[in-house]
């Protein structure tokens, strides 16, 4: 769980005296950790709809997300740091998304890619089955508008997230959403996700 002081996720660290946290060695350690996290954002290979095509295009030949160290798409949520929610989130999918997010180890980041996951997008008004924004389900770090956003925009979002991780390391993370969807159709009690 992200604590209120920002990105330090190791249990017990936030128990340290705030003044001690400011001391030279600990800030250096924090800097090194942030540096690593910044340059090794492994996204989860997780696409929902149209935006996922642009996410793939961003990882592919012309735009090459791997330049920023963010091109290692992991299929298992256990090994990924960044969830790019690309596409429309439906009510049926929301519990699974939530579960995948919970399966990711801390520190984890979420980019809400596209109009649909920001606020329902074009489906907001008449789409009964579309969640009105992914931030109702998981906390979002970067909102990336567009329908779908261009790959340049996704690169920009990742750069912004990198900036946020290191340069604004102490900032508060977004609040946890209140509504926690239950998985209604998990009849066999099996894991619905990769892990």
């Amino acid at each position: 769980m992200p604590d209120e002081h920002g990105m330090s996720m190791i249990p017990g660290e936030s128990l340290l005296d705030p003044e001690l946290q400011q001391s030279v060695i600990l800030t250096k350690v924090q800097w090194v950790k942030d540096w690593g996290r910044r340059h090794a954002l492994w996204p989860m290979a997780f696409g929902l709809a149209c935006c996922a095509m642009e996410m793939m295009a961003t990882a592919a030949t012309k735009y090459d997300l791997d330049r920023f160290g963010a091109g290692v798409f992991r299929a298992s949520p256990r090994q990924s740091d960044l969830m790019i929610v690309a596409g429309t989130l439906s009510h049926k999918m929301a519990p699974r998304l939530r579960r995948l997010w919970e399966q990711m180890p801390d520190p984890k980041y979420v980019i809400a890619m596209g109009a649909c996951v920001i606020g329902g997008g074009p489906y907001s008004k008449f789409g009964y089955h579309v969640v009105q924004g992914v931030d109702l389900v998981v906390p979002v770090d970067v909102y990336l508008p567009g329908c779908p956003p261009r790959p340049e925009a996704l690169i920009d979002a990742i750069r912004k997230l990198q900036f946020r991780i290191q340069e604004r390391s102490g900032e508060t993370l977004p609040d946890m959403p209140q509504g926690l969807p239950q998985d209604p159709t998990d009849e066999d009690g099996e894991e619905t996700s990769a892990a």
Partner: protein
Amino acid sequence: MSGGTPEGPGPDLGSGGEPAGAVEFHERQEAVGRDVRTEEMVFNMGPQHPATHGVLRVAVKTDGEYVRALQPHVGNIHRCAEKIGESVAFYQWIPYLDRMDYLAAMCNEHIGCMAIERLGGIEVPERAEYIRVIVAEIQRILSHLMAIGVYGLDLGAFTPFLHQFRERERGMDLLDHLSGGRLLYHYVRIGGVKRDFSQDWLDELEAFLSSVETRLPEYNTLLLHNRIFQARTFDVGIIDPAMAAAWGVTGPGLRAAGVDWDLRRDAPYSIYDRFDFEVPVGHSGIGGQVGDCFQRHWVRVREVEESLKIIRQALAQMPEGPVMGRVPKGFKPPAGEVYMRGENPRGELAVYMVSAGKSDKAWRARCRGPSFSNIACITEVAEGMLIADLVALIGSMDIVLGEVDR
């Protein structure tokens, strides 16, 4: 479970086991000795799984590596396109059609607009028809390139996937320069298209066509002619013509099964009857068996070549003139209904629209996503195959979940 010994039913294996005799076993099971107990596992492939091409969830009952039964679960990105279709005005629905099959947006627009035009009796200028065919065929090339590349990815070859993106990006740029969008365009409008080609764009198009022409053999070297690829796809996931017809499989899946059927030729819409092109049909001469994964892949590759032909012919025939017909302001078609079918890259998209008259909204807007029927048939095809073959099968169907769930 197969725990039955010759003497009688095997011991209860607890959770995960089915009651004895509930599941029929494949012949190969008999190779397991009598002391070996096997137990079935239920895998949930997806919704977050690299092989499901989106958010398909397939519950697979396996015995070791063999698939015993499977059930696809869809609806994870059900986006209510039909409800929206009857809630918004006709012209407002076209962008939603784009988003149904996001890899074939132009084709969807084309067919959706034609449905509405037929409903309202709107004439489309000649030049606009040609432009529509050209952009739809560019879209078909892009979609098939994606399908070819992603199929490689499913089979573990990463490089063809990224290589096809090189051509795909050129094509996307092309449509971007024409319409302003890379993936979803809203370029085809009711009554015509948004804007005309420019000479620069035509030059760009020519460069794109020739680059696809030169690069396609390279992709074939990486996949189609690759020994491992052939070993993975030959005789895997065979769909015979009767099965294809009964399940409603259309598009490359149907043609690979040996059914010589292409709406562009057999029920020509738009101006497809003016072009001379072949319809690739799976046959035993190309390797593998008719209707297997390899033949579906081969049909896609061949269709890219045919699309190139159609575009070249359309460019040569294209007349001068306006690109937008006369569409009455506050367009309200008379009461009636229309069923418009068209050949999408994935199969037959059909739009069934009912107009109540005196309204700018459809009374009912129904879509038949080709992938919806294509993916349903894997329940029958996949029984008894290996998990790796299941991945090959799903990949070869080339589904787009946005269209399955709509």
